[in-house]
């Protein structure tokens, strides 16, 4: 554990100076500020940011996460030749990615709300839910990114796989749900759709946000099923646990690859 935190400390310094992490925070900041200036009150800005969080966060976590692990290869090699175990190395690396990305997200989205708090009040609860969902999505998709990068030796293929995965979660999945509903519309679909929503971490994030914001119009089919069958509070709990599972399982699988790997 001591070594893991030491690796983390140095990784944090390395990543914090990385231009992309800084750019990520700045883009989110500018975007949020722009939404405020375009005349929205805090509630409307939050609603607009919903889709930003759902689309952008997984994309950044997946692409940046895979590239990060590929470019850390030499660093990993150097440290593993030192008295450093693979468990410490792996946890230090992942935290060194997930923490700065989460911090960028919280700072980039949160700061404008603090700045504009005087104008129309601060919808604290909804803001916290938005940020927490963003962080959960960051954790899950960085874990998945690690698994992808460890699965593919080749950088280009790994990066391609990460993009495909994002596309599948963000676009193909919705089409799939529609298709299922269109084809099997005459059957009771609640249970299959519940299961379907659990296999897509991005949809789980969407469920979390929409259940809490209670915007039925944006909810989509899986959201409606979730709300109808689990109710809001149980639905939130199930979605949160499932999303944490999407962090834990890829991390365990990734570590098994990492431990057996030749460097």
């Amino acid at each position: 554990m001591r070594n893991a935190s030491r690796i983390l400390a140095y990784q944090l310094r390395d990543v914090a100076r990385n231009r992309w992490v800084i750019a990520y925070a700045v883009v989110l900041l500018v975007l949020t500020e722009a939404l405020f200036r375009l005349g929205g009150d805090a509630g409307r800005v939050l609603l607009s940011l919903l889709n930003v969080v759902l689309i952008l966060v997984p994309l950044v976590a997946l692409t940046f996460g895979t590239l990060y692990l590929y470019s850390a290869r030499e660093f990993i090699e150097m440290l593993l030749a030192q008295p450093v175990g693979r468990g410490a190395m792996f946890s230090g690396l992942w935290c060194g990615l997930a923490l700065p990305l989460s911090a960028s997200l919280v700072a980039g989205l949160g700061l404008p709300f603090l700045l504009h708090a005087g104008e129309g009040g601060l919808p604290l609860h909804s803001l916290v839910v938005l940020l927490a969902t963003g962080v959960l999505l960051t954790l899950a998709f960085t874990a998945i990114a690690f698994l992808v990068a460890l699965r593919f030796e080749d950088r280009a293929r790994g990066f391609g796989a990460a993009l495909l995965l994002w596309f599948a979660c963000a676009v193909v999945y919705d089409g799939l749900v529609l298709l299922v509903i269109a084809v099997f519309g005459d059957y009771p679909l609640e249970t299959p759709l519940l299961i379907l929503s659990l296999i897509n971490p991005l949809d789980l994030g969407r469920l979390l946000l929409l259940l809490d914001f209670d915007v039925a119009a944006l909810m989509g089919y899986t959201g409606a099923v979730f709300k109808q069958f689990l109710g809001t509070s149980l639905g939130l709990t199930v979605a949160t646990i499932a999303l944490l599972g999407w962090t834990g399982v890829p991390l365990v699988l990734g570590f098994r690859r990492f431990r057996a790997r030749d460097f």
Partner: protein
Amino acid sequence: MSAERPAVDAIGLTKRFGRLEVLRGVDLTVPSGRITGLVGPNAAGKTTFIKALLGLVRPDGGQLRVLGHLVNGDERYRRGIGYMPQSARFPENLTGSEVLDMLGDLRATTAARDLELLEKFELEDQIGKPVRTLSGGTRQKLSAVMAFLFRPDLLVLDEPTAGLDPIASGIFKEKLLSVRARGSSVLLATHTLSELDELADDVVFLLDGRVRFHGPTEDLKRRTGAPRLEQAIANLMRERAS
């Protein structure tokens, strides 16, 4: 000092990458307190063997002891090892001194560090800069400093002088001889055989994943009837071919 446990003791070490058998049963005992040269053509398995010593590559079979410790996934034995890879790359945004500090933190050692090479390479004014701005040669020098930093019992060097200029390379060789005098063991993989002529007490010749010769440099020259190591190795390869 030479009566101690061997620095490296490998028995029947095997490793394959897919269909490629890289190590086909390496039996090798590297004595302590000597400089052992590891030579062989490209793809003979030198780097794979070295990486197995460091636990970077997991062997498929056989047994490997380094400094008396069984290599089995426990990382502590590596405290005694200084390693210099073929081409060292570092976290790009850290400075040289941050990298050196990090290595010290990871070992949690209070022992005085060996910074002689840092002075002799005149790197003091370079290590405050981010590593990404350093030239390839300067990185190689930094990597050399790192290998000697904690006064290791075993130095594992993979083509160490390949990126060094002649002056730096001379300083490096001097340093090697001085740590041997202090009792450290050195395993030195290289293609520069003239270098081994100056430095190596023993030579290990690796070919197709097996040890084909291991013994004092002088024995090899005598056996092959060659005055220089370069010819001796060439003769050895020809001997095998016929």
